[in-house]
């Protein structure tokens, strides 16, 4: 029926406007649409497509932003891949990424299961957990820096002091740099994953649980065999976007650890891939090497996403 109507109106159109394929008629048909497409396309080409190609080109050159870029082949890549600082950045970022993604997934799911209902108290609690996703950013990272930084009047040290722990120099000790970043990011991101899990949990029909309960399945069985498999779309989404987002972390390590001379903090303990890129590009003006770092970052994100999707698909076929 719908199709018939469609064809009819198509016929009507064809009768009312006989289209001759002349240049003028083509111009009439396409002018307004192309003008509507133009602003986005222009910006897209100038600030996204061209820069991607340009940075690929720059990654094969020696360029200090003043002299003309000179072609050096794979030298930038080989220099970076021989730089221990790059491996430090990569190690920090990897530990940071995997820990924060796993923790936000687990805690986010726990929160969604605990506070997923429509009761007013649960809605308020969801609002609280979601708060950092909105009012986060540099401002609250600055607050954290103060809570963490000071030796004995720092708030975190006071709190852990209540439980009998010694004061810790959170931002001054290399071994705590990555854990602090992970803690901040989990604090910041668990509300968002919670909200995603809540909407996914709501989509699971109650009959499934009832049927399983009748069959004598324990709550744990129901959780493992019904809830977890049916949450797969959200797991995929939070994991893939989480990995990509975490690999690109910049503002937090910059706020916590960067100073005038060094972006990575003590012994580069807080150096990440993007702060390393930033330092190469905008502290040292090694634009070629910085571009190569950007492309290595792209390759890493790309491969991790592929692996992730492959693993998820394999799980899917097993079930």
């Amino acid at each position: 029926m719908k199709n018939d109507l469609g064809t009819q109106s198509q016929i009507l159109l064809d009768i009312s406007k006989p289209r001759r394929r002349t240049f003028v008629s083509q111009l009439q048909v396409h002018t307004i649409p192309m003008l509507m497409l133009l602003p986005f396309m222009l910006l897209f080409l100038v600030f996204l497509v061209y820069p991607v190609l340009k940075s690929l080109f720059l990654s094969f050159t020696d360029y200090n932003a003043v002299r003309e870029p000179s072609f050096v082949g794979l030298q930038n890549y080989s220099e970076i891949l021989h730089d221990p600082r790059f491996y430090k950045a990569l190690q920090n970022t990897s530990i940071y990424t995997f820990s924060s993604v796993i923790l936000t997934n687990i805690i986010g799911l726990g929160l969604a299961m605990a506070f997923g209902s429509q009761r007013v108290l649960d809605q308020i609690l969801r609002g609280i957990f979601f708060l950092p996703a909105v009012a986060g950013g540099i401002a609250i990272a600055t607050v954290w820096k103060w809570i963490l930084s000071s030796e004995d009047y720092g708030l975190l040290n006071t709190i852990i002091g209540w439980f009998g722990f010694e004061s810790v120099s959170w931002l001054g000790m290399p071994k705590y740099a990555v854990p602090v970043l992970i803690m901040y990011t989990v604090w910041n991101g668990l509300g968002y994953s919670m909200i995603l899990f809540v909407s996914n949990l709501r989509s699971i029909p109650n009959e499934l649980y009832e049927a399983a309960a009748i069959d004598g399945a324990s709550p744990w069985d129901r959780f493992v065999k019904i809830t977890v498999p049916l949450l797969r779309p959200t797991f995929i989404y939070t994991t893939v976007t989480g990995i990509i987002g975490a690999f690109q972390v910049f503002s937090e390590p910059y706020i916590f650890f960067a100073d005038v001379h060094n972006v990575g903090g003590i012994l580069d303990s807080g150096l990440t891939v993007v702060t390393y890129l930033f330092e190469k590009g905008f502290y040292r003006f090694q634009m070629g090497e910085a571009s190569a770092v950007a492309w290595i970052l792209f390759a890493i994100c790309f491969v991790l996403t592929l692996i992730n999707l492959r693993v998820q698909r394999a799980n899917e076929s097993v079930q």
Partner: protein
Amino acid sequence: MVGEKRHPVLDQLIRLPFYLLALFVLLPYYWMATAAFKPLSEIQARPPSFMIKEPSFHNFFDPRWVFGEVSPLQDVTQGLFQRYEASFIGHIFLNSMGITVFVTLFSLLFASAAAYILVKHKFWGANLIFGLIIASMMVPWEVTIIPNFLTMRDLGWINSYQALLIPGLAKAFTVFFFRQVIMNMPNDLFEAAKIDGANEFRTWWQIVLPLLRPALAAMVIFVSLAEWNNFMWPLIVVNDANHTTLPLQLSQLAGDLSKDPRSAGVVMAATLLVSLPALIIFMVFQKDFINGLTAGSVKG
């Protein structure tokens, strides 16, 4: 628990650690809000106190402070509005606000128009363009910053509003998102408009945009939040006071914190001012925020 029968004791047992977690999430906000109104003596108190004994506005403006007097023992410090003039704080606030509104408004207008044309207007190359848009979404944003910085420099746009406004207008994800929504709109609508003699521009303005409202709301939240908190790009293209933004100025102020713990109260006063708009908007539009952000994810 969602989707399962409640077991009261187990339920509360599971919830207990999460109630503590909620306190932990609120803690920095509480700490910021109280510290902003604590006098210096309480800021420096060890151990720190959760209460404000003598609330004051001295972190914003301390009338006792005299220029040139620096005494580490004095319970007086330069308030935020003494360190920066009120007009300057207003200026960078307007900078941030203006950039956020401009980028959000125009990036969404351009993206929705482009998405509509790519879906509903048949022309050679439409799929090619869309493929390019999808491909560009896979490239991390950092790949573009060096060439874009060089472009800004070559155009003479370093330290200009153009640099803060124009490059941020090309948002591939929004086109992708709008395209998915527009594809599900019934074709009959557009054909009816065509029969009535509306051109593509009027159809977009009068039919597509109103129908896109929920999707637009979601993207307004995404784009405006990201823009309000944008840090890296202004850090790269701006180094003068005239074009600085709130996050940028705040990070500079926060740098003082590590040098001089006495400035903590002033820094907290500033962070309160910066996060207040986001906090108010969040409280008013909490539901829309949450719906908007889930709309960006996959459907189960």
